[in-house]
């Protein structure tokens, strides 16, 4: 299949098949989810040796496990013998995992430690039958990522300029962040509908989320919305975000904070925040939402991070965490968590209203007639980029530039036979 032909950046057209086609989905599993760096969990979820949290990389079940020496590791949650899951819990602390089926037992470095009736096996070399590890694991300021591809570039290179923006959430205070959750729920929509929405769709907020805003619940301040000065920012490698640009008369790291108590907290710690982030990131830009390619999305202002786990071409499982400054006092942490979950979670007054949109966009991709007509990604208001030292490629907030760069990168990853090809064509 010609994947590139499904994305037409000049015409601003996307073939709807990308949201429902089984063949495309299987290609995504092989070439995208088995190759890219994917988010596994936060350091604060596995603080002690032996702590584990089960997770998914695409549809692959994995165990994120801090080994008994304190090193974070991740393995496919699959006994090497017959394939049973060796861990059925969501989280906890374990020195070993013993498969329930025949009792093969693995230590926290993944080694096959015990095989009942080992003498009955023909030359069983236990060193060759350990848990299948991820190819690379690394963390960025608390966020643990892994990839099943040994050829993938280092995490920092993979994140590129996106890391610079992630700092605005992850590195405001000494000690970084901690998470609570995850909320987990199932939605009959293609995972990309959510990834593109968080990656730059400021356009949908007035219509989709009008009710919450009318009732005084928002993801930013009404002053911010009225000035509506902001950009879509494409960081390359498919990473995209949408950010408010701070008006000069109100410059400060409290800008755009949706809740008074959080704005006051940012004011109180403005000195520390500016020292850590520098002038541009503390005073001149305030990201709202973005997507780390392929399926980790972030909402800076309401403090949620979430993974859109694919569950077939027309289904996803959302895992969503609230993320707070570790150094914040308990009452501020609770305000941060409430601000997050009251807006974004299965009960969130913002997020509830997103779901049918994404379900029906996915449904349209199953429509024989609907598929004959491409989806419109032609919004492209031309306005000058802010000259304030931002990284990445800037375009208007009222644009589909981010979405198109997401899908161009997506197509590139699906067509490339290896990481060498992805890197050589990276723009």
């Amino acid at each position, binding site marked *: 299949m010609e994947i590139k032909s499904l994305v037409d950046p000049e015409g601003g057209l996307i073939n709807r098949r990308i949201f429902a086609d089984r063949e495309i989905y299987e290609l995504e599993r092989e070439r995208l989810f088995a190759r890219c760096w994917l988010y596994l969990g936060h350091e604060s979820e596995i603080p002690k040796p032996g702590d584990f949290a089960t997770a998914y990389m695409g549809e692959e079940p994995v165990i994120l496990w801090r080994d008994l020496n304190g090193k974070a590791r991740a393995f496919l949650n699959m006994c090497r013998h017959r394939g049973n899951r060796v861990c059925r819990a969501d*989280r906890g602390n374990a020195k070993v995992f013993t498969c329930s089926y025949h009792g093969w037992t693995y230590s926290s470095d993944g080694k096959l430690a015990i095989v009942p009736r080992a003498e009955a096996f023909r030359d069983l070399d236990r060193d060759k039958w350990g848990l299948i590890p991820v190819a690379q694991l690394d963390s960025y300021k608390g966020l643990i990522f892994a990839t099943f591809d040994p050829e993938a570039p280092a995490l920092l290179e993979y994140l590129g300029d996106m890391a610079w923006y992630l700092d605005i959430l992850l590195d405001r205070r000494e000690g970084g962040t901690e998470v609570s959750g995850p909320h987990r729920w199932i*939605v*009959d929509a293609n995972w990309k509908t959510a990834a593109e929405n968080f990656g730059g769709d400021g356009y949908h907020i007035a219509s989709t989320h009008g009710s919450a805003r009318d009732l005084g619940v928002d993801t930013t301040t009404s002053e911010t919305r009225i000035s509506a000065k902001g950009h879509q920012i494409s960081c390359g490698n498919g990473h995209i975000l949408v950010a408010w640009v701070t008006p000069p008369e109100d410059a400060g790291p409290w800008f755009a904070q949706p809740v008074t108590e959080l704005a006051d907290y940012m004011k109180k710690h403005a000195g520390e925040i500016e020292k850590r982030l520098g002038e541009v990131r503390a005073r001149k830009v305030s990201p709202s939402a973005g997507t780390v390619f392929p399926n980790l999305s972030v909402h800076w202002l309401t403090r949620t991070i979430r993974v859109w786990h694919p569950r077939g071409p027309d289904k996803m499982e959302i895992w969503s965490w609230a993320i707070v400054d570790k150094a914040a006092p*308990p009452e501020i942490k609770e305000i941060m968590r409430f601000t997050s979950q009251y807006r974004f979670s299965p009960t969130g*007054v913002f997020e509830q209203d997103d779901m049918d949109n994404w379900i029906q966009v996915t449904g349209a991709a199953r429509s024989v007639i609907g598929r004959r007509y491409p989806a419109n990604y032609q919004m492209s208001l031309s306005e000058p980029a802010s000259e304030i030292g931002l990284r990445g490629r800037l375009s208007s907030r009222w644009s589909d530039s981010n979405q198109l760069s997401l899908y161009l990168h997506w197509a590139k990853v699906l067509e490339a036979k290896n990481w060498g090809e992805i890197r050589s064509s990276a723009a």
Partner: protein
Amino acid sequence: MDSGLRQTIEDFLYLEAELLDERRLREWLELFTDDARYWAPIRHNPLERPDDLTEELSKPGDSYYFNDTKQTLKIRVERVYSKQAWAEIPPSRTRRLISNVRVKKDDGTEIEVHSNFLVYRTRMEKDEDIFVGTRKDILRRVDSAMKIARRTIVLDQAVLAAKNISIFL
């Protein structure tokens, strides 16, 4: 515990279910005391069978489905009556089955009541969700009326098999 009290409480819980099923949400909100808390934890699968079931549930300081006051509940209610609350346009059709009502404690002012619920939700052409769990309520006698002072909703599912919870439990 005397069965007269249980009957009074059952009548109250059935009335509450009726208000929700009939979408009389503003009247439903009036069943809560002004200092009410509305709490629904999330849950996880533990490695070992805990002696205390609540170990599987999130605690204050962790995540939750609901951690509302009457004021934040009111915003949720008013949102449903607003023009763009798309999760409830068209509205969910619900049927609440409330059962296994147990009066756990009564200090003369406040009564602790546990009950089980099965909420069937259907919406649009053929959306279907079933929310099942237990509720732990603190009911308070205010003047001659009964009010909900605290509600804890424990859903049985770990991964929610629904696109959202845009209704009240």
